[in-house]
């Protein structure tokens, strides 16, 4: 118990770091994933800008990067991280690498959700002479917004989980905190205190996501 009280400042700092890491990752990875996902959706054969070679290329790229074990990806991406964010360790590096990895997962989630948009609606948009980009952004995205919100909520939770490995490259956050001060020290109280905060955070976000999706989908 005492340990926990001693560690309180670190724990709250870690909570803050988790929020920052996950929020920024969701932002960058979210945008990257959205872009790739939109690309996959619209280039798919029979899609609004059907183009088999673009689709295959994107598909292969996503499939190449998604399954690489994250710790290997983390190490392999260090040189790139140094180029882009100036360092291979610490929070900037972990945010960079997580964003990159998350992009590919988000791309699939986006692709899947866009595919549930009714073809008739897209036809209606085509019939008024809308360009593929307009259709994508003004019709397809709004139509799929409810499921997309749920998809991004899903990814948020996955990112919280993934960010626990931040510690490998000197990043912070609650997951790292739980591992370093709790788990590695065989200190269950600390472990579960940190996990509890993570869980509360996730509950709040998931409830918010559900609420938002329900509002958007009106069901």
């Amino acid at each position, binding site marked *: 118990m005492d340990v926990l009280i001693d560690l309180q400042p670190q724990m709250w700092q870690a909570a803050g770091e988790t929020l920052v890491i996950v929020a920024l990752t969701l932002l960058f990875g979210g945008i990257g994933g959205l872009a790739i996902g939109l690309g996959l959706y619209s280039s798919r054969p029979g899609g609004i800008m059907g183009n088999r070679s673009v689709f295959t290329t994107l598909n292969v790229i996503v499939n190449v990067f998604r399954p690489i074990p994250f710790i290997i990806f983390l190490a392999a991406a260090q040189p790139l991280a140094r180029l882009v964010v100036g360092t291979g360790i610490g929070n900037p590096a972990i945010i960079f690498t997580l964003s990159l990895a998350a992009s590919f997962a988000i791309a699939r989630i986006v692709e899947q959700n866009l595919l549930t948009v*009714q073809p*008739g*609606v897209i036809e*209606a948009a085509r019939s*008024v*002479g*809308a360009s*593929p980009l307009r259709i994508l952004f*003004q019709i397809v995205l709004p*139509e799929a917004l409810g499921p997309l919100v749920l998809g991004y909520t899903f990814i948020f939770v996955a990112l919280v989980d993934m960010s626990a490995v931040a510690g490998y490259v000197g990043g912070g956050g609650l997951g790292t905190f739980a591992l370093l001060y709790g788990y590695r020290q065989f200190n269950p109280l600390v472990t579960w205190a940190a996990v509890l905060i993570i869980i509360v955070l996730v509950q709040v976000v998931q409830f918010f996501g559900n609420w938002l999706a329900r509002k958007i989908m009106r069901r």
Partner: protein
Amino acid sequence: MSIISMTGVNKVYPPRQRGQSEVVALDGIDLTVNKGDIFGIIGYSGAGKSTLVRLVNALETASGGSIVVDGTELVGLRESELRRVRLGIGMIFQQFNLFSAKTVWGNIAYPLTVAGVSREKQTARISELLHFVGLADKAHSYPDELSGGQKQRVGIARALATSPGILLADEATSALDPETTDEVLTLLQRVNREYGVTIIVITHEMEVIKRIANHVAVMEAGRIIESGPVFEVFSHPQTAASKRFVNTVVNSAPRDKELAALVERHPGTIISVAVNDTDASQSEVIRHLIQREVEFELIHGGIDNIQGKTFGTLTFALRGTSDNVRAAIDAVSRFANVEEVA
């Protein structure tokens, strides 16, 4: 001056599962629609009507043939060029196809946004359309909060929003009550007359053809089996299908059960006389009946006006001595198209 012309157009849907055969939805369509026409298309369910109009704005690509819209050959055109063509064509979809994530207002605004209409002009235009289709109070409702007819009216407003030069109306009034149908048809007629909008109406309601179309094509199994000015097709339908369609709208000879019921209630001879401007006049018919002392009663049918011409089939029950009746029928038969139905 033709604005839409199709030559030898085919549309084949390839089989999607093994064991299925391909579907020939359109089979050698030749069609010319002139600028300013209100061109009706009728035909049985599955005949290919929707497929045909979807080729006009290239939502579907033809399997073969040539389609020229407003001077542009569509077949072989790139998507970006087709887009320009579509800007000038409004479409009312059979299944409405509303944007479920947009309000009624947003649905109608979309084509205006695509056409680059300024926000202020949009507001004015949308209000006008909403009032016209009677949905001013539903402007901020979403499609899933609307009744069937309300959805259809949103679809109509959306198609009309940009005042396109060509309007494709696929069963545009199928979910509307007669009063609203009437208003929509009046509007279509107005845009046609005032702005010269060319309209293709697909419908199964012959009333719609009768009221607003000047030309009509009858489709069956992917082919156009009959086509011409409405009055001609209605007064002298050539094919069995056309006859059946026409029968449903113009007062026609009673058939089957209807006839049986009439026979039961009106013993004696029953004749049906086709009457129209070019053929017989009914005054004359009646005069002959009276002259021959035949008592008669109009038991079925009536007179209508199509494109300003009188038109109809009258069915009379005749009573009198059989000689008189015979003589009367013979006399009338000399100048009119008489059918002795019972």
